[in-house]
């Protein structure tokens, strides 16, 4: 089984013809599915959304190797699940939903594994990045500090913040993806933002 390069070529042709990005990966992938070409659809989705999905997963699971595995698993399961895609959401939202499920499952599994070897009842998540006080001003850039602070949020809050801002999804789609009310998610995000501010202050990051 080899990847289908026609989909990628179509993108390049469109870009060169117009001199600007006019590529509509959603439409092209759906058309590929309509003509029963799941390989082409997957190629389009990987090209269009692979990087964004990876960065989303990376921020949730905080582990490079795990994020790589989960990114790949997301697209494998998307390929296997094309026949079940009901088009009630965009393909991108659907991919992020798969990615979210896999990422949170992995966090739960990792937590159970750690609990098996440690006796403490209340087991905090593994720290994202340990930042020493003397590192704060010299080695941590603001962007790195923000990334670290996002990773310190509780998983559900972290996911909501990422979907809202990193992935720029509307609350209606986030709510459907998470199976929660949009109002609940808005409150969760609005409560997470001060925590990010406090974390950044704690790292000595002032603007």
């Amino acid at each position, binding site marked *: *089984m*080899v*990847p289908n390069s026609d989909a990628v070529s179509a993108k390049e042709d469109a870009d060169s013809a117009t001199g600007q990005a006019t590529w509509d990966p959603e439409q092209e992938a759906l058309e590929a599915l309509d003509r029963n070409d799941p390989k082409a659809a*997957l190629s389009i989705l*990987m090209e269009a959304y*692979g*990087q964004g999905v*990876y*960065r*989303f997963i*990376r*921020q949730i699971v905080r582990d*490079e190797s795990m*994020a*790589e595995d989960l*990114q*790949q*698993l997301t*697209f*494998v*399961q998307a*390929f*296997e*699940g094309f*026949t*079940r895609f*009901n088009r009630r959401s965009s393909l991108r939202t659907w991919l992020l939903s*798969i990615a979210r*499920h*896999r990422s949170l*499952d992995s966090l739960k599994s990792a937590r159970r594994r750690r609990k098996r070897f440690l006796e403490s009842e209340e087991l905090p998540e593994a720290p994202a990045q340990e930042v020493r006080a003397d590192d704060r001003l010299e080695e941590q850039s*603001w*962007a*790195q500090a*923000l*990334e670290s602070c*996002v990773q310190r949020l509780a998983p559900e809050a972290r996911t909501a*913040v*990422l979907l809202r*801002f*990193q992935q*720029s999804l509307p*609350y209606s789609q986030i709510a459907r993806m998470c*199976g929660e009310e949009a*109002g609940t998610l*808005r*409150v969760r*995000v*609005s409560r997470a*933002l*001060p925590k*990010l*501010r406090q974390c*950044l*202050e704690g790292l000595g*990051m*002032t*603007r």
Partner: protein
Amino acid sequence: MSRSNCERFEQEALVLLEESQSLDSHFEECTDCQEAMAMYRELTNALVDVGSSHEPHPQWQARVWAEIARRHESQPRLGWRVWLVPLGVAAALLMVLVLPGLLQQSTDPGTQIAGGVETAQAPGLRVAIEPVGSVYRSVGAAIGDRLRLEATTGDARHAELRVYRDADELVLRCSTEAPCQQADGKLTAEIDFPEPGTYQTVLLLASSPLPAPSGAGFEVDLDRLYEGEVEVLPGDQIRVE
């Protein structure tokens, strides 16, 4: 990122902004709140690019294709049977259009379903939909219609019927206990469609005990089933309006 004295912005305005609601005049007049607003605007703008310095593995796409190929090769039993689903549906539709009288008959005299629409399935699992009120319906289903599953399990030591709704909710799971029944080498079950959605029927066969559902939906369960070398025979997807 200094903290202002007035805390109203954090306590009140953030959620109002997320709800796209307007703010009262205080937030325009309060210096602390104005500073907080600017700070949070910068913060949320920065969140758009959080993690942007990370790139996926350069060979990640190749790995995806390799895994798809590996999974395809490890499921030989499913290969040729996949074609029986669309062929069976085509045959069923042909019967509906040309020979309507045959709908009252069953290929298996012991499982006649009057007034029902039967969809042919891959060997091992047969699915039939009995419309509520015996109203004839050529395709699809409605809430309250009865879904009947009949599986032949062959020599599998462990067998299970499952039905998922919208790939998330497991609405049926049974083997030897209710609502399943076992008799004469067949495993049968019935449910009435409770809600709209897309229902996926599945027969699972294995020589060892089957993995329990994850509670995280069909896709996660599929992963576990394939890892456990379970034979997965999917039935039709049934759209319930």
